[in-house]
């Protein structure tokens, strides 16, 4: 999952980016409204965390502009003002959720995860397929037999993206766009290696290769 974090505070921004990266997200950080609006329109983010008090262009304006151009990227608004007036305005502009500063990291991660699931039309709760459950807190896999199996950071990102987008053919480049951030080197050959390792852990039949098109994660089982 690739996120856009828009936060102008020079300390909080990078700190949050690190936290989110540790939670298994690819994160781009933007520090002003104009830059954020452009990035949100160009890059295929899965979610945006948007601070409202931004230099150059307010977060509310950025959000309203996206919605005006039919950009439906899920947005979690992050703000310090915290008045109900502002909350209502935020949702009116098209926000999907709202977190007041200061917040606990767990709360932010829980909300981001909930909004991601909601935006994909999935029920709340842990991601499950074929008896295999993805434990988001420990970034590990719980097998049908209840056995924990650890995942590397990239494996976790890949699997979560598959589980959030089941029964769709996903091209290698789309996979790379959503798993790596803007500055990463996106080598699609490396991707094949990671997918093969993932198959060994969850069973090879779950991720099918569609030649020339990409991969398909089936939620129904074969």
């Amino acid at each position, binding site marked *: 999952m690739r996120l856009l974090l828009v936060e102008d*505070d020079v300390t909080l921004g990078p700190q949050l980016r690190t936290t989110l990266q540790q939670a298994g997200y690819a994160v781009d950080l933007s520090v002003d409204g104009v830059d954020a609006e452009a990035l949100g329109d160009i890059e295929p983010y899965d979610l945006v965390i948007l601070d409202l008090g931004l230099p150059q262009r307010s977060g509310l304006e950025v959000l309203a502009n996206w919605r005006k151009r039919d950009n439906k990227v899920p947005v979690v608004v992050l703000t*310090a003002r*915290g*008045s*109900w007036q502002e909350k*209502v305005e935020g949702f009116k502009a098209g926000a999907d959720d709202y977190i007041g500063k200061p917040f606990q*990291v767990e709360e932010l991660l829980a909300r981001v995860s909930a909004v991601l699931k*909601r935006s994909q039309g999935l029920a709340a709760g842990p991601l499950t397929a074929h008896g295999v459950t993805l434990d988001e807190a420990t970034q590990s896999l719980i097998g049908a037999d209840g056995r924990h199996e650890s995942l590397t950071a990239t494996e976790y990102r890949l699997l979560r993206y598959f589980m959030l987008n089941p029964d769709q053919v996903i091209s290698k480049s789309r996979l790379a766009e959503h798993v790596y951030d803007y500055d990463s080197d996106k080598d699609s050959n490396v991707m094949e290696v990671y997918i093969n390792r993932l198959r060994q852990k969850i069973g090879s039949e779950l991720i099918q290769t569609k030649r020339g098109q990409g991969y398909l994660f089936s939620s129904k089982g074969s």
Partner: protein
Amino acid sequence: MPVKSLSGRLSWGLALSLVILLTVQWGMVSYAIRHLTEDQMASRLLQDSESLLAGIQFDASGQMTIDTTRISTVYQRPFSGHYFVIESIGQQYVSRSLWDHDLLTPAVNAGVQVRLTIDGPDWQRLLSVTHGYLKQDRLIVITVAEDLKQFDAGLRQFQWLYGAVSALILAALLLLQYYIVRRELKPLQMLRANMGKLERGETDRVEMAGPAEIAPVVAELNRLLAAMGNKARRSREALGNLAHALKTRLSILSQIAQQPEIMALPELQNSLQESTEALRRIVERELKRARLMGDALPGQRVNLQEEIGMLVQTLQLMHAGKTLDIRWRVDDGAVFTGDQEDLLELLGNLLDNACKWAVGQVLLSVKKSDGVVFTIEDDGPGCSPEELQQVTVRGFRADESQPGSGLGLAIVRDIVESYGGRLKLGRSQELGGFSVEVWLPNR
């Protein structure tokens, strides 16, 4: 003494002075006319007296004779209203018109004149002029009298007419003055109507020019209103910025508390987290309290349907993880006049609280009742009487395990107090859970 209206006082003062003026005028004119007419009558009577004197002769024996051809016929007809009496040393000659009636005649010396109002025959009231003359060395006293009936009748008629005309003029003047007072006080009436509108939140400034006496007041009032509004907006903005800055720093602190290096020192981490949380609560509570407008400024009429609709939509999204049925109804005629942000803060906190505790249903109803009553109910567990007592007294949440700031009720109480309203907590009749009733008075 009750405060009387300006127009009432003006009307009474003007009416009283007009009545006094017209009455005094009526009396003066009556007096002057009586005086002038009586003078004129007296001089005519004196002329008659002198022509009588010319016809008086004394013969050698001292007997008085009167040339009757000189006497006007009105003195011959009985009780004609014109009489005379001539007296001279034991002799008396009386006009035929007097018949057998006696006239009161004062004794005077030669050259002395007396004017009297006396009773005559036939209940007549007479004006008499008595003059003493010397003729052929004898004192002759001639009294000539005339009935005042005609004159009195004429004067009365005049007085009636004058009175009637005066009354008409008075009525016309009062009417005119009533209109003038009303017209000239119209700007004040308009000002009053405008103040009413201002209070009810139908306008945010006084929309009128007014005459020179009032225009500066109106201008000053508008300037003050604008200044207060601007000041309130600026201070809200400043408080918002302060909250933003403080809370962003607090976010950083709470992030730091979760760094692995700090996690290795649980005591340090604990105290860091506790301090951050305490600071957050203080900042939240005090800044929200400072942002409250209350009823200090003239309010705006808030569109309840629109604001509540939007708020409910927001809450649905905020609690999207839960299947909630949030129903709301606003009675016709229920009106809130005040600050829109205060209202959103009040209802937002209460509804958010209800949504957190509810199993599946939340109900908001707005009723008109000598002000406005907001009732928020849920189908959650509600509160036991002891818990209610605690919540009411301390204003903090009963269960610390429920996520949320826990400041909601405290802020709600601040808002209700700033509007002079009342807050009632209890159990919902309809849904069985917690119920909050907020009454806010009319302005």
